[in-house]
């Protein structure tokens, strides 16, 4: 066992356990904090995979924005989020079965592919060149400028939608003011 393998097992185990806690934790706030740990574990895995920039993005976007947003939502809706009582529905065992079968199938498939047992060749370029390449690829008209621009349109459309949904319905401002 090399050091890298031990690190992988460590981070992988942390991520896995944190993910399990996210879906089983009876308290929603706790689940949100476990989610942050799981996201941080994924960021560590990105570093092991030498995708350092994505690790940073993972921390900034996922932990910094999405997870915090989720925690806000949990806090805002706290009064009605039952922290007691069952957090799973009646057919949770079906869900368990589905995901176990899915996992079993995926592992069987992955174990049978010999090409996946290999280890990677060392990266030929340093991180700065890599980052520069990624930056260029995203704005290069022959590479990823179209998906990049589409993603920006998507973000804008969802922002419009989110603002529209979050705003009190027109005509009811007065009533919501009274509350």
């Amino acid at each position: 066992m090399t050091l890298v393998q031990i690190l992988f097992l460590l981070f992988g185990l942390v991520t896995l356990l944190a993910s399990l806690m996210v879906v089983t934790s009876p308290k929603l706030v706790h689940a949100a904090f476990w989610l942050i740990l799981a996201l941080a574990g994924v960021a560590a895995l990105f570093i092991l995979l030498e995708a350092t920039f994505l690790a940073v993005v993972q921390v900034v976007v996922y932990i910094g924005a999405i997870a915090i947003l989720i925690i806000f939502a949990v806090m805002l809706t706290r009064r009605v989020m039952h922290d007691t009582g069952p957090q799973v529905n009646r057919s949770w065992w079906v869900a368990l079965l589905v995901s176990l079968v899915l996992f079993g199938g995926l592992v069987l498939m992955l174990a049978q592919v010999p090409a996946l047992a290999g280890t990677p060749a060392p990266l030929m370029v340093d991180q700065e060149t890599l980052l520069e390449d990624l930056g260029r690829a995203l704005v290069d008209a022959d590479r990823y400028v179209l998906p990049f621009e589409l993603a920006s349109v998507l973000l804008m459309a969802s922002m419009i939608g989110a603002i529209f949904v979050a705003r009190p319905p027109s005509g009811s401002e007065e009533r919501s003011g009274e509350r």
Partner: protein
Amino acid sequence: MIPLSWYLILAAAIFCIGVYGVLARRNAVAILMSIELMLNAVNINLVAFWRYMSPGVISGQAFAVMVFAVAASEAAVGLALIISIYRRRFTVAAEEIDMLKW
């Protein structure tokens, strides 16, 4: 070094945990968190494939960036919907959500 299949199996495990969460949890925010787990599993896959299969081409990382953008937009719309329902009736309707029993 670490075989590629380790990463893929880890990603598969996280994805399946996410699937379980979506199908089993009753609370809308909890379901949203499970969906985020699924998307993270996708990103582990993408980055691992990039590193092991084609490190010379940046496409895997560019792809992962798109997934970040989509995850952010989904979270924004989803949380807006949840909070809007909450504000109106002081109850998260999705609390009684049973994805398998609609």
